[in-house]
């Protein structure tokens, strides 16, 4: 779906922000991009949707090279939801906000209401179509932003820490919605995140450091390099810390990605003694 090769980018002439990045994203997959602040995560998101222009290398999306000529075609495939819910609400009501992208795309007026209805229902905001942004919670605003992206009939959604400013309930709302869209609608998800629980649910993880890919692979593969992750100031998920401590006292089990899994294994091992 997405192929990035030897991608370079610099904001100013002194220092390169992205220094030769390569990765691929399969259609229908869930990819997490992690890395400490300043590693280039958000810059990559902006490069992927053509908000920033690369200095060299190539970005291919659905077989199309990202360039000036294909920019609009590509933006009809890939969209982004940013971190701050207050900075991306453009309309005066929920319906207006979802309509904004559709108007830009010159969707005929008579088709618009049906699309707005459909996607506001998908994100659970149908009952709020006439509401103004000031009367919505952060989680609700982010759901509207997601509806706006989905209404464009996209294949790929990039979440740039889209849940990080929300309270626990808002975070949960967004995670559940994205998981549902990923599983039921086969939406390709690229999530820039610090949430290691989310990372564990991904198909693929890309770890960035100072503008290059430090490593990539499945969550289990990445977490085998625990020392490197710690050196990069990344969080080790609790469930891995538990398994490491257990291993040190001689309790070994097949790698588990959930607390429930560890508890189950412990019970089984215990009943065998």
């Amino acid at each position, binding site marked *: 779906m997405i192929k990035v090769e030897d991608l370079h980018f610099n904001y100013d002439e002194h220092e390169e922000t992205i220094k030769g990045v390569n990765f691929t994203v399969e259609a229908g997959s869930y990819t997490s991009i992690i890395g*400490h*602040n*300043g590693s280039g995560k958000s810059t990559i998101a902006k490069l992927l949707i053509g908000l920033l222009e690369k200095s060299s290398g190539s970005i291919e999306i659905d077989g199309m090279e990202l360039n000036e000529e294909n920019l609009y075609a590509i933006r009809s495939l890939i969209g982004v939801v940013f*971190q701050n819910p207050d900075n991306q609400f453009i309309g005066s009501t929920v319906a207006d906000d979802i309509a904004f992208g559709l108007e830009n795309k010159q969707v005929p007026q008579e088709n618009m209401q049906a699309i707005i209805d459909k996607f506001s229902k998908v994100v659970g905001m149908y009952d709020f179509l006439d509401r103004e942004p000031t009367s919505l*919670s*952060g989680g609700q605003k982010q759901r509207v932003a997601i509806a706006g992206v989905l209404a464009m009939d996209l294949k790929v959604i990039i979440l740039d*820490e889209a849940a*990080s*400013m929300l*309270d*626990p*309930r*808002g975070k949960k709302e967004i995670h559940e919605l994205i998981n549902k869209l990923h599983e039921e609608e086969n939406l390709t998800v690229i999530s820039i995140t*610090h949430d*290691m629980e989310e990372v564990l649910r991904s198909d693929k993880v890309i770890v960035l450091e100072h503008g290059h890919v430090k490593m990539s692979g499945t969550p289990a593969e990445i977490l085998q390099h625990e020392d490197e992750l710690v050196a990069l*100031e*990344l*969080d080790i998920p*609790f*469930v891995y*810390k*538990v398994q490491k*401590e*257990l291993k*040190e*006292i*001689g*309790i070994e089990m097949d790698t588990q990605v959930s*607390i*429930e899994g*560890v*508890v189950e294994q*412990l*019970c089984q*091992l*215990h009943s065998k*003694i």
Partner: protein
Amino acid sequence: MSITFKNLSHIYNEKTPFPSAALKNINLEIADGSFTAIIGETGSGKSTLVQHLNALLLPTDGEVRVNDFVIKAGEKIKDLKQLRRQVGLVFQFPEYQLFEETIETDVAFGPKNFGIEEKEAKERARYVLELVGLDASYLERSPFDLSGGQKRRVAIAGILAFDPDVLVLDEPTAGLDPQGAKEMMDLFKKLNTDFGKTIIMVTHDMEHVLNYCDEVILLKKGEVELVSDVKNFFKDSTIDSLDVQPPHIVEFKRQLEARGFAFDEDAFDLPTLVQSLKGEFDHE
């Protein structure tokens, strides 16, 4: 010296057709030198409550006492400036409030505003910036060239610069990466234990509550739902009904207990739990 709320109520837009009661009859006591977490859902009144502590909001009814200051509904506060010097309030996303050309002048603004001489204000700026982990090379830089996490440190330094006894933090780690959040929390713990500051923190992060705080106040729909010390709070199974996401370690312990494993009820750290498990496995 402590902080007390007595029959405190706050109604937004009172005397308009759309009044809304944000706080209802709050009675609380917060001990001097404690590290207290204020938790509850969005809209439960957490931010409204803490903004009474330096009289940014005034009670519609009842009173707040902070040390010798009394903030009472309908009464003028004596020496408001002195109160605000004793209670430093750090808002959500404080980095949006930086405004000076250099970090040094931004941090020195608070103390100067409280009448401290320019020279001393600058010395204080230097000292507190060091405390939040920014060395002297930052002094002449613009606060707007910093990363989000660094900007937030500058904003917090601006409050520490006038040396308040009470530090009130409204979601201080929201939006920070895990490492940045940890450094921030370690700083607050240090201010609490080494400098004796009373810390009152609004948060949604139960891992922080467990690992850093002594006391928990849970608000629900503008009322105090529960006051507890931290360990009892996580021990108590009533939190299951409170719409609180427990820390991973608590979740792990509970699930094992439900399957028949037994632990010391005060143990909430991984090494202790794992050692108890070792006992269970060796014992057999």
